């Protein structure tokens, strides 16, 4: 058989394949710093507005310009938006990784690439669509400084034509991207149209993948977690935020700086109701945060693992002196500098016990962008109610990637400023002791600096103190104070967001998970159930654990704890909390820098189950 015959037969067979509708993963392989973000956003937004569930993940190097970057769009009519190992469609825009990128495609996959590349097309099973990028650039002749950006619009047009992405939605997506500014929209759209027209005239569709309008995204939004977290803080009344640049947390502070001036300036005076300070390091960032929290502000900082390392001493102080602050940890891969642009859930144990001596911290675990928003405001209520640092553990995947979500719900409860005594309160009480457990819940009463009552003052310190905050080395003072702190910690169990449990008929297996792995776990459970392996699922939303977590563990024979770290850290925390149940808790953990996939969870679970 000649090559030509093989080619023809193959083409024939692909045309005969039934179309695969609204079920694809597409990767755009580019070089970072070449401005492909606009193109990728146009594609994903257009799909989203066609009513097709999507997610977008940027896999990028720790580098500013010149290294390979991959943007993955998953479109799923079934509504699954976790990362998937299999890639069906490649938009190859980086010649350096062309062979590697080709190798990553599924059998019979699709490759779009610039037609002037000379590298061999080694995979014979693929459908190739060469694109005349240079030719179209010549025809359109955009301004020199915009060439790279406009060049990327070629693949938007060609891909849209081949996959049947609606051109009106591409235009609408560009209008959103450019905030309705007509000039850039028209310039980009001109290239999109030209490329689509060229494809219609010159390419024959040979692959089965396509999209069609659906109604599954009505009312939804497409947003990243860090923006959501920042919006949560804005609506939570943040007064003070201090931060130091670090991937993948910087965009949280960026979003604060974008939305606070817009939403939180006093309309009458034009004055800010907040301050955001870029500190000289994370030591200072948390130091300022603690100072502001002590003085009565709703105070926060945002960072990632290496920043948490530097914050350890102040976190211990804030725990012991009982200062309300909020600390966002957008986790990335460690130890050390690790893989700064890759995701992980590896800070659980570190954050839980951050600080020397005995300390236990409360942390929240948002499992969606909507919960990033919700915990963004709720964390302040909890911090002020419990008078302690509240950590919120997001991660790079949740924080920096694009997720679909219901529109965020406006806070349904008024702000809780906690137990704060005014001048009038002190007048009525006639006495005051900062660390006295008046209510038996371990939470004492605080007064704020500036309270004019002569009894109000207390001296915050990291040193041993009695219930009046006076320096003490008496053994009884120490043990009583620590016992109260643990009482307070137990009280926290009732305040933090409760876990969410989902049962399936006939399930023997229990899964426990949290955070950004939620979408992969949901997909895995659906597919496992189809295979006759139903599971119950408890999604943790905070540590310390509430009673319902203990109940869930007790009532299941085998529990798998799904997490993205090497030490099975959440399993360890559960085992510490439930020593009599420890052997029932099995690790289902994976940690390679990439978001967890449903397939990995299924295969690993079935393997451990001996199936």
């Amino acid at each position, binding site marked *: 058989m000649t090559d030509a015959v093989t080619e023809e037969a193959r083409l024939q067979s692909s045309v005969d394949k039934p179309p695969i509708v609204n079920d694809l993963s597409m990767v755009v392989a580019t070089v970072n710093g070449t401005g492909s973000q606009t193109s990728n956003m146009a594609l994903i937004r257009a799909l989203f507005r066609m009513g097709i569930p999507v997610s977008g993940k940027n896999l990028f190097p720790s580098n500013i310009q010149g290294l390979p970057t991959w943007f993955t769009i998953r479109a799923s009519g079934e509504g699954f938006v976790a990362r998937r190992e299999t890639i069906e469609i490649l938009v190859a825009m980086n010649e350096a990784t062309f062979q590697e990128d080709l190798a990553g495609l599924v059998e019979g996959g699709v490759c779009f690439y610039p037609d002037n590349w000379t590298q061999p097309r080694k995979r014979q099973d693929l459908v190739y669509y060469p694109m005349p990028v240079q030719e179209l650039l010549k025809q359109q002749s955009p301004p020199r400084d915009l060439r790279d950006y406009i060049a990327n619009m070629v693949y938007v047009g060609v891909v849209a034509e081949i996959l049947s992405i609606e051109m009106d939605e591409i235009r609408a997506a560009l209008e959103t991207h450019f905030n309705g500014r007509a000039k850039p929209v028209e310039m980009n759209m001109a290239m999109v149209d030209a490329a689509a027209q060229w494809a219609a005239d010159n390419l024959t569709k040979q692959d089965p993948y396509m999209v069609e309008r659906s109604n599954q995204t009505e*009312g939804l*939004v*497409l947003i990243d977690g860090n923006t959501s977290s920042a*919006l949560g803080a*804005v*609506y*939570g*009344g943040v*007064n*003070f935020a*201090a931060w130091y640049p670090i991937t993948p947390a910087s965009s949280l502070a960026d979003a604060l700086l974008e939305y606070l001036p817009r939403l*939180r300036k*006093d309309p009458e*005076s*034009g004055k*800010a*109701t*907040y*301050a955001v*300070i870029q500190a*000289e390091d994370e*030591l*200072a*960032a*948390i*130091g*300022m*945060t*603690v*100072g*502001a*929290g*002590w*003085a*009565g*502000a709703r*105070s926060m900082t945002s960072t990632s693992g290496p920043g948490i390392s530097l914050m350890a001493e*102040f976190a211990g102080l804030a725990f012991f*002196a009982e200062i309300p602050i909020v600390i966002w940890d957008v986790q990335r891969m460690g130890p050390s500098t690790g893989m700064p642009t890759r995701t992980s859930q590896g800070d659980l144990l570190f954050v839980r016990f951050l600080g020397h001596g005995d300390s236990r911290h409360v942390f929240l675990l948002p499992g969606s962008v909507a919960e990033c928003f919700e915990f963004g405001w709720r964390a302040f209520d909890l911090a002020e109610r419990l008078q302690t640092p509240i950590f919120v553990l997001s991660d790079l995947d949740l924080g920096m990637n694009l997720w679909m979500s219901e*529109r*965020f719900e*406006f*806070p349904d409860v*008024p*702000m809780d400023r906690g137990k704060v005594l005014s001048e009038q309160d002190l007048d009525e009480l006639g006495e005051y002791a900062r660390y006295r457990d008046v209510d038996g819940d371990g939470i004492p009463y605080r007064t*704020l*600096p*500036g*309270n*004019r*009552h*002569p009894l109000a*003052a*207390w*001296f*915050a*310190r*990291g040193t041993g103190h009695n219930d009046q905050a*006076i*320096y003490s080395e008496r053994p009884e003072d120490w043990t009583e104070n620590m016992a109260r702190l643990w009482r307070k910690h137990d009280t926290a169990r009732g305040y933090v967001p409760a876990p969410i449990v989902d049962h399936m008929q006939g399930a023997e297996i229990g899964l426990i998970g949290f955070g950004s792995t939620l979408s992969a776990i949901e997909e895995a459970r659906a597919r496992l159930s189809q295979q006759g392996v139903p599971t119950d699922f408890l999604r943790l939303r905070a540590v310390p654990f509430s009673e319902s977590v203990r109940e869930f563990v007790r009532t299941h024979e085998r529990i798998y704890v799904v997490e993205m770290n090497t030490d099975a850290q959440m399993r360890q925390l559960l085992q510490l909390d439930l020593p009599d149940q420890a052997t029932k808790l099995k690790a289902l953990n994976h940690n390679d820098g990439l978001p967890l996939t449903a397939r990995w969870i299924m295969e690993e679970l079935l393997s451990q189950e001996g199936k």
Partner: protein
Amino acid sequence: MATATVNLVGLQKSDYKGRPTTLCQGCGHNSISSQIMAACYEMSIPPEEIIKLSGIGCSSKSPAYFLGRSHGFNSLHGRMPSLGTGAIMANRTLKAIGVSGDGDTASIGVGQFIHMMRRNPPLVYIIENNGVYGLTKGQFSATADKGQSLKKQGTNPFMPVDLCLQALAANCGFVARSFAGDPKQVKELIKAAVSYEGTAVLDIISPCVTFNNRDESTKSYSWGKEHETPLHDVTYVPAREEIKVDYEPGETISVKMHDGSTLVLQKLDRDYDPTDRMQATQLLEDARTSQKLITGLLYVNHDQPPLPESENLPDEPLASLPPEKLRPSQDSLANVMAEFA
């Protein structure tokens, strides 16, 4: 009936006291604590309007020993600047008095010290400088003189860090040096620093009687008494008082503070313009080479806006804004959400 003497807000001196000191008898820090109390009493500042901040060390313990009716925070080693920055941003109506030492500022905290001055939050930054680590029993600090001897560590081979030079380099708008053995000057400079709207650095040589008070030490009482060379005689005149003209023309320089008070600097044996940064730098170089303890207001300017102004804060404390100013409307959230649809 005898009535106790009170200040303009009706408080007695005893209302400015703290808990009994646990520092060594004769420690320079105790003398500085006394002058802080005296200054605040004489300025009639209600103690509830003051916050006391410190890091770690002997000096940083001292805020417990003055102004017992002020909120205070004894924080972490070298971290008072960040703590104070956050606190004053949360409530700009408070007067912040920070106390630090030479270990706390010149070693572990030198980074925060410099960055605080760069941002210029209103805060009195007192360094109780004795050239030695006291609480850990007598190690050299970074301000110890080259060639200085200590019982425990022998002779120091390194040049000292001059914290006033550091402050000048960092664009600090209020830089003063004083000596715990000159309580009148300490008190007047504290008053001026409290009136200054920005970060005011006061480097006060404060002898450690236990570990570094030998006659030859530049941080000892006897050396200080012998070598102190005041630039000028310092008198703080509150806004409400008239300046009594009993100086010859050309013999005084008046420095106006934001709150309307005036610092009157009476010339001693040299002409000195405290608004000239280069002259201040030269002066400190000369002091080092001639081994003099030059004290007084080394430098003052009002060029840099204080941090709450740079950040466009309202006059009322951020910490006491009501919920309706902190939570935008439900409609505004709907609008933001629509942008992501």
